[in-house]
């Protein structure tokens, strides 16, 4: 409850509409109750007195109130839906902006998939709650309060029925929720399990078919399917109590009114001018029906609320995330030439003191082409993340041209670094829009130039739409190699002082890779290149090779011929890839 209340501030941004929504809701509820209230006089006073004029008069008043009710209702719908939609849009935008400013340490902690669910499903659930809130959550208590006030006004004696039925209903609903809630939680878990099994199957048809393990998979599925059926049946069975119980209490209420009426009539109460107040009894029936319907809706909302609250909690968690990496105010924007120095650098992803890389001390000169090699988990990518400040060092300094990256304006820093990530990230749009991400102001010649450098030019011109070739979400209509080339082109169009390729050519064949590297070597602005690769055949073409061992330390930094004798890690790698008798002087 607490979490969703926190998000109410978004609805609070529309105070005028909120007030109108509440007032019109009062009008609506008032109409529903006041019409039976007016009816009492018709039945109890005007009919016995055969007062036709007042019957008509009162009927017209009732009609007027009903019309007022619908006008109020329409205004209420307009304002409440407006608030729900517009408040959620604000919430969604804030959340999106917050996600974009999260540091990667934050993102790692949250997991990307969760952030996506938060910004999509969780927000929708909160929105549904907003929508219902103004329609039902406010309405239900109002109906109960107004119903009780009018009931007491009409007859304190008959109102005693409500002292019995309302608590009965409240308790029943609580009991049902008490049993239903844990069961629905189990349903959620079982559904996750089921989805996981299906997802695994959907991701691995080739493995399953190769091992002809369909029967095994069927059994696995059957187990989760059965489990899901069980928990679902159990939860739905509890819910099956709800409607009959509410119906029962409602009918008991009607019987109760008659019972109390009979009792008090016998006592000589509930009389007017010597005849029994039938109208009062009828009005009570009506009140009772409306109050109970209001409560029923309220109960539904409460069940939904617990789910919306979970979503709200997840959203709030993101809002509360402390961003540990911020762009410095008035950050420096020096002209970046491209030398890089690591000074006593250590970095760890967690707070557990397990450094991913440590003791990093080296300098890379402007224009130098550096290969980075090492085992998986040796910290190759990590090391390069520290340069554009995807992460901040735990200890030491990363300097570009003698300026600590942490005092530079991040946007300026990134503008001068062409980074190609390991899994080429291509966005939907066109080839051109993806390339423009590297340089907004690029003209056609610049596009042509960098697409040639990345060997994407031929592909582009094979397409009917050329640079307008439509790229689908996640670049699914490009091959792995094409995606890598496009992301290389996007980096090259920046003409950055520093280029970083994180295994960026793994899906490009060797001769193409060679051509791309030749293009980089021939660039007039002579960028510094950091190239991470698993292949000795690739890194050995660089000026120097930085070798990382399994602990994230530098095991050697020099030319191939030198490292093959001095670095044990490098020897092992070269040995495994080039093999005995490869002709490179290993044993």
């Amino acid at each position: 409850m607490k979490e969703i209340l926190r998000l109410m501030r978004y609805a609070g941004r529309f105070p005028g509409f909120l007030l109108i929504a509440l007032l019109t809701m009062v009008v609506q509820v008032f109409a529903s109750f006041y019409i039976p209230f007016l009816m009492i006089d018709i039945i109890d006073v005007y009919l016995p007195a055969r007062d036709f004029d007042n019957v008509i008069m009162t009927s017209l008043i009732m009609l007027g109130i009903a019309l007022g009710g619908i006008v109020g209702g329409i205004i209420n719908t307009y304002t409440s839906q407006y608030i729900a939609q517009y408040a959620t849009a604000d919430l969604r935008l804030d959340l999106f902006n917050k996600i974009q400013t999260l540091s990667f340490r934050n993102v790692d902690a949250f997991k990307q998939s969760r952030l996506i669910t938060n910004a999509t499903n969780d927000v929708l659930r909160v929105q549904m709650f907003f929508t219902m809130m103004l329609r039902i959550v406010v309405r239900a208590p109002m109906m109960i309060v107004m119903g009780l006030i009018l009931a007491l006004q009409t007859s304190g004696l008959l109102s005693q029925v409500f002292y019995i039925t309302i608590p009965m209903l409240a308790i029943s609903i609580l009991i049902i929720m008490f049993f239903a809630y844990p069961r629905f939680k189990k349903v959620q878990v079982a559904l996750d399990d089921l989805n996981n099994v299906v997802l695994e199957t959907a991701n691995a048809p080739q493995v399953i078919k190769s091992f002809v393990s369909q029967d095994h998979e069927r059994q696995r599925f059957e187990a989760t399917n059965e489990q899901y059926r069980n928990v679902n049946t159990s939860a739905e069975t509890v819910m099956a109590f709800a409607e009959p119980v509410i119906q029962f209490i409602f009918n008991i209420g009607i019987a109760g009114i008659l019972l109390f009426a009979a009792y008090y009539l016998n006592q000589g109460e509930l009389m007017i001018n010597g005849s029994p107040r039938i109208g009062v009894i009828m009005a009570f029936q009506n009140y009772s029906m409306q109050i109970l319907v209001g409560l029923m809706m309220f109960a539904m909302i409460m069940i939904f609320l617990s789910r919306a609250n979970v979503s709200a909690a997840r959203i709030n968690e993101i809002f509360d995330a402390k961003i540990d990496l911020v762009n410095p105010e008035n950050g420096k924007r020096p002209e970046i030439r491209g030398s890089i120095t690591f000074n006593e650098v250590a970095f760890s992803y967690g707070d557990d003191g397990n450094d991913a890389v440590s003791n990093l001390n080296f300098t890379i000169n402007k224009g130098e082409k550096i290969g980075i090699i090492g085992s998986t988990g040796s910290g190759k990518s990590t090391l390069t993340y520290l340069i554009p400040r995807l992460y901040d060092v735990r200890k030491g300094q990363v300097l570009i041209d003698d300026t600590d990256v942490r005092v530079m304006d991040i946007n300026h820093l990134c503008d001068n670094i062409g980074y190609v990530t390991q899994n080429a990230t291509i966005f939907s749009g066109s080839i051109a829009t993806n390339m423009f991400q590297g340089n907004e102001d690029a003209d056609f010649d610049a596009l042509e130039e960098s697409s040639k450098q990345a060997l994407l030019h031929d592909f582009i011109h094979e397409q009917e739409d050329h640079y307008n070739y439509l790229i689908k979400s996640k670049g699914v209509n490009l091959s792995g190699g094409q995606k890598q080339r496009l992301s290389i082109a996007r980096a090259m169009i920046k003409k950055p002082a520093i280029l970083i390729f994180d295994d960026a050519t793994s899906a490009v064949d060797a001769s193409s890779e060679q051509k791309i590297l030749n293009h980089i070597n021939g660039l007039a602005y002579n960028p510094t290149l950091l190239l991470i690769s698993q292949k000795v055949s690739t890194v050995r073409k660089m000026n120097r090779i930085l070798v990382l061992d399994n602990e994230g330390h530098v095991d050697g930094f020099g030319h191939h011929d030198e490292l093959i004798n001095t670095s044990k890690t490098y020897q092992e790698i070269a040995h495994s890839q080039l093999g005995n008798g490869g002709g490179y002087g290993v044993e």
Partner: protein
Amino acid sequence: MVSNNKEILSKKALNERLKAEIDPTDPKNFKGGMRRRDTPPVGAKPKNIRETLFRLLSYMGVYKYAVLMVFLSLIAATFATLYIPTLFANSIDRYIDLDDFSRFDPTNLYRIVIIMAVLAGIGSIIRFFSRFIMVRISQNVVKKIREEAYDKLMKAPVDYYDKQGSGDIVSRLSNDVELISNSLGQTVLEVLNSSIVLLGAFVLMFLLNWALGLVVIAFIPIMILFTIKISKKTRKGFKEQQVHLASLNGIIEESVSGLKTVKLYNQEKPFTDEFEIENDKLKKAGFMAQFYSGLIWPFIHFMNNLIFLSVIAAGAVLYLFTPLVTIGQIAGVSQYSRQFIMPISNLAQLFNALMQGIAGAERVFELIDAEDEYENDGELAIDQFDGDISFENVTFGYTEDVVVLKDISFFAKKGEVIAIVGPTGGGKTTTIKLLNRFYDINAGEIKIDDKNINTLQKDELRRRIGVVLQDTHLFKGTVYDNIHYGDFTADKEAVIEAAKMANAHDFIIKLPKGYETEVYEGGQNFSQGERQLISIARTILNNPDLLILDEATSNIDTRTEAKIQESMRRLMKDRTSIVIAHRLQTIREANKILVIDHGKLIESGDHEELLNAKGFYYGLYKAQFEQ
């Protein structure tokens, strides 16, 4: 080449065209709005409502007596509770004499109260009972549907998975089935319930007083008309809302999953701009859709009040001037009139839920009706392969119009290692996928031991071919389970033996829980190299007659790499193997090297032969392995 016959525009023409379509000097081209975005198709409108509904209902056929019972008991329950207002009305007229109240005897009313309470109790018990049964029926039906869908998934060709994508498959089996479950469990029951209440209230109201009944009936056409009109308007609005929601979700997904690139290229602003524009559209579309659909509520409340007051007013007038109504009847009918409205609005709402359920069912049935790859299964059973493999003029394309492999022929003798090399996208992976009939070839023949593989039973064929792919898939479960996957009949010792052979044993026993260490979804908690070692162990345990291997290209740590090499060599011993090779060592040791490029076999021979030929391989070798 495809591009040869295609007109390549001159640079100038291109430049102009580019300017016209995506003028890079115009900032709006990449600041959001103008970005051409690929939006997933939305709109859950069922295509064939009747057929799907009948098919869905046919699943309930087994439970037809139970459903009938539910139906009958609902009628009984509804009449039990619906009779209460009549009782109320009659008791007022009969036992409360307005003109001579002195003869009032409350015991008559007490009796009625008891009858009411009993009726309410009986009604609710029956009602619960019918729900209890219905929950079980619908859960069983849904389970059955899910089972059938999964079963088809097991039989669907690899091609089906390629086309649908895993997200779509999961959503069919969970979301869509869930929609069916809602429809069956609640909607069907509610529709029945509402219809019975409607009918019951109608009949009882007329029995109580036909004149007042007519007053109520007069309003029904208005209600129906309005409801239809609103739902038409609403449906359009919701569809539009869905479209914007889908594209907004697309932006979120892209920017979050590509967050590194977003930051590295300072794309926060363009994404935020684009997000803002779509968000704006969504809120406007959402507002219109929700406003129209929300109008149904004030309307229902209004009708509720209007009918009630009409009954009172008309009742009062009729009471004054005709002998047609009594006070009790006014009370009774006014009560029925309120019961009337709920089912009508319910039915309108339920119609939408039902449509959603049918749309869901349609997508699930699509899966159930998908192609079954065993329909063109071969009949020949086989015990074992010797291991001669021959490709004879094999031509293949994933779709009919694009040929991926053309006229490939080669022969591998028992025990030989065949290395396939060539540029990415040239057709290497495709070649190996044909051997175990993941895809069927368009022309030519593939033979194992001189038998056309199309004549062999698919399962038997696949059981005898071991496959180790570059990106290995591990299943959720323990490490042990994953190796055991190779042969479910193997005992623990055999599993450990296989792990040892695969060089996986050493790293496994160093894991915190050894063989019992949990593998997370997709094997994320293992490195790619470790995953591959486990999968090699799995294949060793499987003990296949033939092997298909895909060497890893990158991202394997060196020590593991050496271990993989060694264990692969053990695996290949005495088995005919086809390897997509990247390591020089593997290539040099192969009996035959096939160079495949642009879907054609352009060279074949051993290392020395191909080097001497100074052809494509020679160039490739130079680029990759020499300075």
